[in-house]
């Protein structure tokens, strides 16, 4: 049991997809304007990761090595389509806010990266925990980034204004602000990592 827990936890801190592996930056930059968008994107990506990791792990012995990437893409695209249709049906507002970045999960490098680097070589149960951990790590990173950006860039958290008279810095709501926040957080986490070693 402890082994599975480790598989799950490594995606959150030690191999966090955003801050350690530095994968999936395109959706991170684009959707981290507000916490709601961040959570929505994180859950969608987690579901796709979980599904694709399990299926690819199940099929790891029958996928020919030379055409593995197209096979992964077909599996991933199936789960992305499911996600998108569900989101359209039950949360159209979130779907509109995330826009093109929901279908673009197909080419999200975290999903493809886990399929290529982990699921195609590992047992199903391990792949399940790996996908779950990576997805939760991605979601937490998105919440952190979008929380900072929403608070400083719009003066709100989850859509509620916190302080009256606080004048937000518009730049953090723009893509350049996302780059700034991600860069500084990366630096901060690297400092923490260097301190520990």
């Amino acid at each position: 049991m402890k082994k599975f827990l480790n598989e799950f936890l490594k995606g959150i801190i030690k191999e966090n997809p955003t801050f350690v592996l530095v994968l999936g930056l395109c959706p991170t930059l684009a959707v981290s304007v507000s916490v709601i968008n961040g959570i929505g994107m994180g859950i969608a990506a987690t579901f796709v990761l979980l599904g694709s990791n399990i299926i690819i792990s199940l099929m790891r012995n029958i996928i020919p090595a030379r055409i593995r990437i197209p096979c992964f893409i077909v599996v991933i695209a199936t789960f992305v389509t499911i996600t998108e249709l569900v989101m359209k049906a039950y949360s159209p507002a979130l779907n509109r806010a995330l826009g093109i970045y929901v279908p673009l999960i197909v080419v999200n490098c975290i999903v493809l990266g886990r399929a290529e680097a982990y699921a195609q070589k590992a047992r199903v149960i391990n792949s399940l925990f790996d996908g779950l951990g990576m997805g939760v790590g991605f979601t937490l990173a998105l919440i952190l980034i979008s929380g900072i950006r929403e608070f400083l860039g719009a003066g709100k958290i989850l859509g509620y204004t916190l302080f009256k008279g606080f004048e937000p810095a518009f730049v953090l709501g723009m893509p350049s602000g996302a780059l700034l926040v991600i860069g500084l957080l990366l630096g901060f986490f690297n400092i923490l990592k260097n301190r520990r070693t």
Partner: protein
Amino acid sequence: MKNRLIVSVSPHLHKDESISKIMWMVVISLIPAGVAGVFIFGQGALWVILLGIVSALITEWIIQLFTKRRVSILDGSAFLTGLLLAYNLPPKVPFWLPILGSVFAIAIGKQVFGGLGQNIFNPALVGRVFLMASWPKYMTTFTKPLNYDAITSATPLAALKEGKVLEHISHWNLFWGIRGGCIGEVCIFALLLGALFLFIRGYISWHIPITYIFVVGLFTYIFGSKSVFTPLEMSTAQSGIARFLTGFSGDWLFHILSGGLILGAFFMATDYVTTPLTRKGQIIFGMGCGLITAIIRLWGGYPEGVSYAILMMNAATPIIDRYTKNRIYGTK
């Protein structure tokens, strides 16, 4: 006699210069422009300048203390960054604006890259552009010159962008600084005085500022005939060629004297750290700055483009340096 013979390796000629001395000399050369700005816009401008400088120094001190680097707040570079940032702000801004600008300029513009000499972009301009993108409302509200009641007025370039006609501003008014604008950019006379001092002492060369100003003048002369001094004749519907044929009548002197061109060209585009090293590279740098400034002013969304032009060319500096390396004597 024997003891006086000192054998040492070259170089044998020492120049009594240091980074810190150069920084303080630039600060001294900027004093007239600040005095003129305070005279034109009133006491508020003085507070903006002081807040900018003090918060730049404190930020530098805290970061150097925190990162356990040698504390060098007296070398003048942080002082100069704070001063230049304040000169790039409108005279009536909330007190936290120069503070945040200086903190951002020193922390993100300079110390994140490793401190003095390591930064890619001019820190003061990084601070200004951050403020401009974050709080555009305060950064584009200018007060009327020589009127200490804080009546807002547009800068000449903003008026030009909106297509207004400003008859009451003459070239002489622009030269002496009787116009709306940022604290340090308005009084061209005072800026030229400081620049002349730097030229005579040899701290800046003509290559960047003169090419910069010349290219802006040339471009606005060819393409900028939609001047504030002549009524609007051309509609935007006219084609580029028709525009070009009616060109060669732009008010180039207006464009050189207004906005932050003189301040930018002499004091910020000549920063040693962020500009090319070779003479050839410096001329390319100046031309690029001039081109981008003129394009932003004539066709861009903002009325003024000096800060963006210098920052963009700062980004191009490493590649300019690579292609303009001086040939080492004796090699091909």
